[in-house]
């Protein structure tokens, strides 16, 4: 849609050109990252579009799911950007990139038609037209970042992540590498926070976004699921769930949390609610470049966990025993809490008894 942000308040940036967000979900996607972003509250998409977040530039969003326009009217911005007439813009790619070199006259996925030939325009064609002109290129979700579920072994479309397509050394017109926000789907607030960093950066209010080697924002993906998990205490005590009824650590029943980079256990899914192992869902590694194949079958114990679980089991059971003694102690009130006709708290009263 084209929602023109409405200027509010001081109008500090009112003379600045708006930043357009051109968002395509026409890769091998489920549109789940767009849907996920409508769940964001920190900040919400409408807060950004309506100019309610201080310091952000004006933003115009072009996204298929939310657009008021349809067809050609919707596609107009994409054609203008490709012709260098829409500047600056951030290019958001959702969905893995199909290999269109392997299917003859056919196509795996397309967005709009070529006005001259009437033939469908494939996603790689759009990426070739738009990525080099974009101030920043943002890959939303694990499909776009690393290939994801549709790039699983045995897939017929030969699809891949955006950096596999553009090259890992790609630089946008703004001099930035691709910015990857993985997740299947993307955690809503992780995406909005990354987008707002880029918008602050575009406005000159933030330095270059810090990214790790897999091009992820470091403050979001620098820790593992396990490091933020409220069930990690059970692991420490060597106390493991044997089936999904248990609220204990799930590494023996399929959880990959100890080796997966993701903040879901800290952040929850929406405003602290939900998540994965913290609420009983094994971590299947959905933010990772190796997803899904390196984590399947999902419900089996990860091979690496055999050794660590055995070690944690020995050390942890001792810790657990010691702690249970202390726990029993701290579950009892001090002895001087009583209703007898004497004071045993240690105070020496001066009044006559």
């Amino acid at each position, binding site marked *: 849609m084209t929602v023109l942000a409405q200027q509010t308040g001081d109008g500090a940036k009112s003379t600045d050109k708006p930043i357009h967000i051109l968002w395509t979900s026409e890769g091998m996607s489920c549109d789940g990252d767009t849907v996920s972003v409508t769940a964001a509250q920190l900040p919400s998409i409408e807060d950004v579009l309506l100019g309610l977040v201080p310091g952000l530039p004006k933003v115009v969003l072009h996204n298929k799911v939310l657009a008021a326009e349809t067809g050609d009217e919707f596609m107009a911005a994409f054609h203008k950007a490709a012709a260098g007439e829409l500047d600056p813009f951030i290019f958001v790619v959702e969905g893995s990139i199909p290999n269109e070199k392997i299917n003859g006259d056919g196509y795996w996925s397309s967005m709009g038609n070529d006005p001259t030939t009437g033939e469908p325009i494939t996603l790689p064609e759009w990426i070739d037209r738009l990525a080099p002109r974009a101030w920043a290129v943002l890959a939303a979700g694990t499909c776009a970042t690393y290939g994801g579920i549709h790039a699983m072994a045995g897939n017929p479309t030969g699809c891949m992540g955006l950096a596999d397509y553009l090259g890992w050394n790609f630089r946008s017109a703004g001099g930035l590498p691709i910015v990857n926000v993985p997740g299947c*789907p993307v955690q809503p607030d992780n995406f909005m926070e990354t987008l707002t960093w880029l918008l602050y950066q575009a406005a000159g209010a933030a330095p270059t976004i810090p990214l790790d080697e897999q091009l992820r924002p470091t403050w979001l993906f620098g820790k593992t699921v396990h490091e933020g998990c409220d069930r990690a205490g059970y692991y420490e005590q060597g106390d493991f769930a044997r089936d*999904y009824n248990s609220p204990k650590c799930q590494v023996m029943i399929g959880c990959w949390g100890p080796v997966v980079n993701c903040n*879901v256990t800290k952040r929850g899914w929406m405003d602290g609610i*939900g998540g994965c192992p913290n*609420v009983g869902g094994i971590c299947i590694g959905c933010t990772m470049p190796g997803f899904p194949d390196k984590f399947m079958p*999902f419900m089996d114990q990860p091979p690496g966990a055999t050794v660590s679980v055995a070690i944690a089991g020995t050390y942890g059971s001792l810790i657990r025993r010691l702690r249970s003694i202390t726990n029993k102690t701290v579950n009892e009130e001090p002895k001087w809490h009583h209703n007898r006709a004497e004071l045993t708290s240690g105070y020496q009263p001066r009044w006559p008894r």
Partner: protein
Amino acid sequence: MSQTMKASQGQAQARELVDMSWDPITRIIGNLGIYTKIDFKNQEVVECKSTSSMFRGYSVFMKGKDPRDSHFITSRICGICGDNHATCSVYAQNMAYGVKSPPLAEWIINLGEAAEFMFDHTIFQDNLVFVDFCEQMVKETNPSLLRRAETTPAPHGDIHGFKTVADIMRAFNPFTGQMYREALQMSRLTREMFCLMEGRHVHPSTLYPGGVGTVATPQVFTDYLVRLLKVLDFVKKAVPCNDDLFDFFYEALPGYEEVGRRRIMLGCWGAFNNPLHVDYEYRNMNAWGSEMFVTPGIVLDGKLLTTKLVDINLGIRILLGSSYYDDWVGEETFVTHDPLGNPVDQRHPWNQTTLPRPQKRDLENGNYSWVMSPRWFNPASNEHLALDTGGGPLARLWSTALAGKVDIGTVKATGRSVQINLPRSAAFPEMQLEWKIPQWSNTLERDRARVYFIAYAAAAALYFVEQALGEIRAGNTKVFSDFDVPDDAIGCGFHEAVRGVLSHHMVIRDGKIANYHPYPPTPWNASPRDKYGTPGPYEDAVQGMHIFEENGRDKFKGIDIMRTVRSFDPCLPCGVHMYLGDGTVLKRLHSPTLGTSVGG
């Protein structure tokens, strides 16, 4: 403007047809293109073709994988109702593994799925569909209608607070309208409810075959209930708001009932299993299917043809005709007979082999879509029926109402209607809403049913919370039953995705997936012409449609077409992509016979 609607009778007269296309169609999920031929002189859409421009290949890459991975994988089919897939896959796996989830797990899944219906219908109706009915849009497409709306009092203004119908339209202006913004908030609250039960939206983390991993303390149910009470306030306002707007369209635009109207051919595969009855055994499927809290059924010309899941299952046929695939007729037959001994057709999902054949799009005489053509074979008439789902709610309410089985206090099916009883909430007293079987299966009724089904899901959720807390208070806190994966087995799951019928069919051999075919609602609704030439439901609903838009050819937006396509709640990752032509005449055809061949 003509105010009656008649399909072209195909008299031998030359008609000037203009090619108009919308690709991509926005405000839907996935890739959909709608290609039409329009007779502007007679204000009629003469031909419509629906095309999807995406193929990912789930049925191809799932072969050989561990069967227990199916719900994790198939959830990724859809970014707005992935959990419906995960749930349906769990149902199919439960059948294949012979495992029954503990009752509390079933209530938790029902609560999660109810929240999904509340979320998804709200965001789709108020933030995507209603943009077609909002003040900004109506001003551009039907200015005289807007003028009339400005002076038409809203009949339920005392409840929802909007004085005129135009005030309602303004409330749905994107990003600035009151209802538009409230709906976004509501879509978040209901997704939080969802996350309480299923961990994450939209690809759940806590669903497993055999149950759930949700930590079933009283807290999750309390947290859910408190949010549900806030939803009640919203629903009590939204339903009369929708009624006022749709009733105004009927009144102000005589003949609008014909927009998007098609023969009543609705399918509903049932939703919300009843833990007291479901055992996931195929042999007992008719019995436990009829105990679902949304009754499965096929409604043909207003009559309930069947409510039996076994009949529904055996009648499914996947046809080709205009799709980019090779036929599998000579490929392996995986299931010759169902567990009851009934023969299973080679065109049934259990026996389908997906053989993609990428090729050039040929909208005139060839293949034009990645969507296949699911049909339901009616043994009584030997017809392959192009069932639609009415966008989901229309078929669910219709089937449930006619079957007259559901009676849980907060929801009662009467045979002619569905009564929804909502208790007192902060802003409103106790309220009964009644959805009555409409005269038509058309654009406005598909949209109206959607808001009623939000109320249905909220009312059912109240009942489910009570049942779940009952289990917990009785000490029944088990949420998962263990199972083994057999070397060889088959399974099928039936559920309702938000936008309609959903089935998953799996075949296990040597402990691995030998075949897996999910059939979501959109292949049914968005299907192209099948080998018999029968158009799919979008095509059929748009074809022969009268145009009410006041713009002429040069500024044509196709609003009546857009409303019709969106009334089905298109979701094409599950099956299809729309594009608004600029009104340029691409090609003029003078065809004396075209009107006859596509009139239906």
